[in-house]
């Protein structure tokens, strides 16, 4: 029983780590209907920049974080200027293809700027087994607990931002209807810069957590693959959906790997997560918390 609790807890924690990546996708999709293929690479790019500023310029952690946030905001502005502005009113598939291009460009630029080596990221986040629970016979990773706390803070921040601020309300208006938002004087371009900036900051948080876990390296961009089933399950437009979806995927895949894996040869958690998401998709195509799709004829 204790082991079952341990697996479930670890699944929840791992799920939150996936949610951190999924959140970035949700923000951009919610505001612009773009599925941002580059979200994983943005997490990598942000983490590379953070480590680069600390290693090459000897920035203290706090200054490196501020510097990276500035870089991510500048990147959002650049993306809007160079890419999105010229693709307004294009089909979603065109915008999606543009983000594929963006992913490769960011990866290349990151490589040129900071190199391909594995970089140690240590900003003082606690790591290792949590002692108190360990003494009770349960293993929970401190880093993942910290990530869960950070995700909670992030969700609260995003909720306040969306509900209580003028920009947040404008952002929701754009998400609801581009044309209507434009007609009341909301600048689509400004909103895109804001949402890509927020998404860049979320990518930085995800990059810090995953980079602290495995070192900052180019495989970090592949964490986007872990976010996809979370999005399918939680819905592409729901912030709480990304969190809850992540937890369901995390627990589901861990229980499957530990209890079913040994019977079928193991290594099932990756595809099991997609299977779980697919099962949800059959019953709720919009995901658990996504906006209901209503087509009027």
């Amino acid at each position, binding site marked *: 029983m204790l082991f079952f609790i341990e697996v479930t807890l670890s699944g929840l924690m791992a799920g939150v780590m996936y949610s951190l990546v999924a959140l970035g996708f949700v923000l951009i999709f919610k505001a612009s209907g773009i599925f941002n293929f580059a979200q994983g690479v943005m997490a990598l790019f942000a983490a590379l920049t953070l480590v680069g500023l600390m290693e090459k310029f000897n920035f203290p952690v706090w200054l490196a974080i501020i510097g990276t946030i500035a870089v991510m905001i500048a990147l959002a502005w650049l993306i809007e200027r160079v890419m999105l502005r010229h693709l307004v009113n294009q089909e979603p598939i065109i915008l999606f293809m543009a983000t594929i291009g963006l992913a490769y460009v960011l990866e290349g630029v990151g490589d040129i700027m900071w190199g*391909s080596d*594995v970089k140690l990221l*240590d900003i003082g986040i606690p790591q290792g087994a949590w002692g108190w629970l360990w003494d009770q016979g349960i*293993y929970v990773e401190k880093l993942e607990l910290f990530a869960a706390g950070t995700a909670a803070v992030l969700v609260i921040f995003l909720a306040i931002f969306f509900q209580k601020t003028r920009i947040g309300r404008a952002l929701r208006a754009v998400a609801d209807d581009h044309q209507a938002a434009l007609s009341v004087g909301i600048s689509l371009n400004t909103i895109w810069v804001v949402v890509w900036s927020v998404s860049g900051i979320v990518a930085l948080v995800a990059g810090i957590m995953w980079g602290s876990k495995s070192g900052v390296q*180019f495989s970090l961009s*592949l964490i986007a693959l872990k976010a996809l089933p979370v999005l399918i399950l939680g819905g592409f437009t729901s912030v709480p959906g990304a969190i809850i979806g992540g937890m369901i995927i995390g627990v589901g895949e861990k229980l499957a*790997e*530990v209890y079913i894996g040994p019977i079928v040869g*193991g*290594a099932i958690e990756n595809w099991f997560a997609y299977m779980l998401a697919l099962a949800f998709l059959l019953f709720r195509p919009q995901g658990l918390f996504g906006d209901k799709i209503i087509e009027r004829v």
Partner: protein
Amino acid sequence: MNSAKLCRSILAALLALPLLSGVASAYELTIPSLDYRTGPYAPNGIPFANGYGDYMNMLNERDGGINGSKINLVACETAYNTKRGVECYENTKGEGESGALVYQPLSTGITYQLIPKSSVDKIPVFSMGYGRTSAANGKIFPWVFNFPATYWSQATVFIQYIAEKEGGMDKLKGKKIALVYHNSAYGKEPIRTLEKAAEKYGFEFLALPVDHPGQEQKSTWLQVRKERPDWVMMWGWGVMNQVAIKEAASIRFPMDHFIGVWWSGSENDVLPAGKAAHGYLSGAFHQPGSNFPAHADIRKHVYGKGMGLGDEDRIGEVLYNRGLVAAMWTTEAIRKAMEIHGTNEVKAVHVRDGFEALDVDEARLTELGLPGFTIPVKITCENHEGPGKVALQQWDAHAKKWSLVSDFYEPLRDITGPLIAEDSAQYAKENGVVPRICGS
């Protein structure tokens, strides 16, 4: 001696000079370098490619190449992707006057694809310590060389090391040994050997796969925590290694009971885990460090001229040295081919002969500026694995360096021999290969 005879002698000596004394000749020796400097496995691919290229550039700069013929190193990016690796092979095999002389695929997946192709194109494949283990049987795989040791040999060496620490081979009975492996052709290679060893020595064997790329391994290590194996081996690559070492540290698994394959034992793998990686072990077939005359020559003749492929301060890292030793054996095989065929203008088919007659003993290693750097290697027509010996190295997290902590063990040939014979015979049957007769 009359004057005409003297003139002829001088002329003959002059003609032979390029071969004998290393004076530059126009004939270039094309060696494709299948690198991966991009993609998720780049942190491992880069130092290997740097060591491989720097050594060859050093020969070019210091000696004018091999016996005076310059090496034309043709880099091709595979991103550790099998499809791209095969494309690289196809695009480079006809390169230059010599054509591609030998391939170092640096990927078990690519090696598997090149095995049938290379035998048709008659180009040797040197899958140094990786790839298809049964290719050690030179009678069935005449174009593939996997010395100085295979994964199967390495697995049996780990078993011996564990037995030694436990107090003897008989003490293995009742022990539990887990293998955490990359869920790919590469990672699965040692499973049969370990199953056979488990049968023979009575230990319990537990195989735990990790899917590519291995960034998330929580469930694997929860199973390790539940099963509580006495020892864990790892056949990992790239980010999988770093995450595994950190996870093992998190569940407080003793690092000195955790042994990685030689592709899981570089600085990249242990540094992200910090002090927690102290004591971690891995297989090795060469020394770490840069205190060898060959390294000094690379610094002087390559980095001194601004031609280095990487950062000078990373010369001597484990994977850099792995690339260097691969380049050393490759160029020695080409040198041997020149010697056998009496010409510098060797082709791939000649280089294969060079590989089969390769004999790099300690005296030769010393001449090459690598005394005690690796084990002596002698290849024959039948045995393409060579010595099969493996040592263990251990990570000192405080000094941030690897050190060899064991002698080189002989593999358990009573386990690996029949497996190699069985697997290679199966390959021959499936592919209609008639085993050649060696010594004829």
